[in-house]
């Protein structure tokens, strides 16, 4: 019965690989450029990158964090 098992598995693998081989891909240069432009666009609003004014900082107030 192990032979049958292998056949079903091998079939599944071939199907899976066909799907994966068939997907559309773009060049790394384009992908990288898009990642970079996303970073650039959002950098201004990234508080861990640029910091936040004390007045707007949620962790500056005295309320303790609640652990549930």
């Amino acid at each position, binding site marked *: *019965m192990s*032979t*049958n*098992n*292998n*056949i*079903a598995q*091998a*079939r599944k*693998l*071939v*199907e*899976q*690989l*066909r*799907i*994966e*081989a068939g*997907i559309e*891909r*773009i*060049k*790394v*240069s*384009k*992908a*990288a*450029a*898009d*990642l*970079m432009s*996303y*970073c*650039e*666009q*959002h*950098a*201004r*609003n*990234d*508080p*861990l*990158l*640029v*910091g*936040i*004014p*004390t007045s707007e*900082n*949620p*962790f*500056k107030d005295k*309320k303790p*964090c*609640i*652990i*549930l």
Partner: protein
Amino acid sequence: MCDQTFLAITFGPCDSCSENRPLMNLYIKTEPINYCSLCMEIMACQGLASGETLKSLKAESETLRKKLEEERKKLHDVELEKVAEKAEALGELNMKTRRTLKGHGNKVLCMDWCKDKRRIVSSSQEHAVTMPTTWVMACAYAPSGCAIACGGLDNKCSVYPLSLDKDENLAAKKKSVAMHTNYLSGCTFTNSDMQILTSSGDGTSALWDVESGQLLQSFHGHSADVLTLDLAPSETGNTFVSGGSDKKANVWDLRSGQNVQSFDTHDSDINCVKYYPSGDAFASASDDSTCRLFDLRADREVSIYSKDSIMFGAASVDFSLSGRLLFAGYNDYTINVWDVLKGTRVAILFGHENRVSSLRVSPDGTAFCSGSWDNTLRVRQEGRGVGRELKQGGTTLYG
């Protein structure tokens, strides 16, 4: 493809042998066939196209693998680091610990932020929410903030509604939603409080309806424990990525259950996966002491975050809001902050006295929290209290 097969599992009489068995629900050219696994194997064997043998199938899968590699290679025209040379250099980071939460009496294994950005749910070996189990390994906040889901060695994921009444016994209101055949390693709500996605040591991931506990979709493909999962940002559609002990990271279509992409460049277990904020890429943290970035549209690994001096496994990763910074917690008690584009490390954060087991950036990106085996959670922020200016096209950041 001449025919397609979809698999889901139910229990009942087999169409072929009439015995009551777990059934593989097959659809051959849209016609449903309910066979038990034994009859399915026999059918598969009998249904071999002429000349199709185990050998020929194996040869075909080899050819397909090679084709996959070639296709990916053709598009590998440049490295991310090279393209990123044009990007501005990051100024020095000054991360400060704002809160150290010591409420747990034992190791913190996982944590999650509430969308209101102030509350955190975390779980430890001694479990903050009383459950009949020793280890809670995964927890998640519902999008509404009104419930949490958690589970672990009990092989289940249970949902607890939250109440402002401190005296209320939360355990009494618990609802078991997911049932796996091994430990629960990860859980997350999808876009509403109504569905949860779980990953398990039984090698599968699954989508569940919270109200009825019904299994909506299951995801098979990993050949070992699934250790982590992350849902794609809602704008990018219905997919999620999972990582496992089989060193693979798989991307899945939520609706069809289909494994659409697979990445296997890690050398050891993948402990954590996280989507890049745009949804076009994801990062992974592995026991091979590296973190890597995989681009989904280029279908390949595009960056690796590692150093010879880092020899311990990475347990958890998360991106800052813009995706420029990658925070990673390691088993050597440190947190390394990486420049995602340039591939360099920009900061090492100390403070924890044991492994960093989990790490998440808050929903508004103002802080990140790390949970550790030293029983604490630390919330950290960029230390400059004043907003800084990032000049367009400039080369430095102003303080």
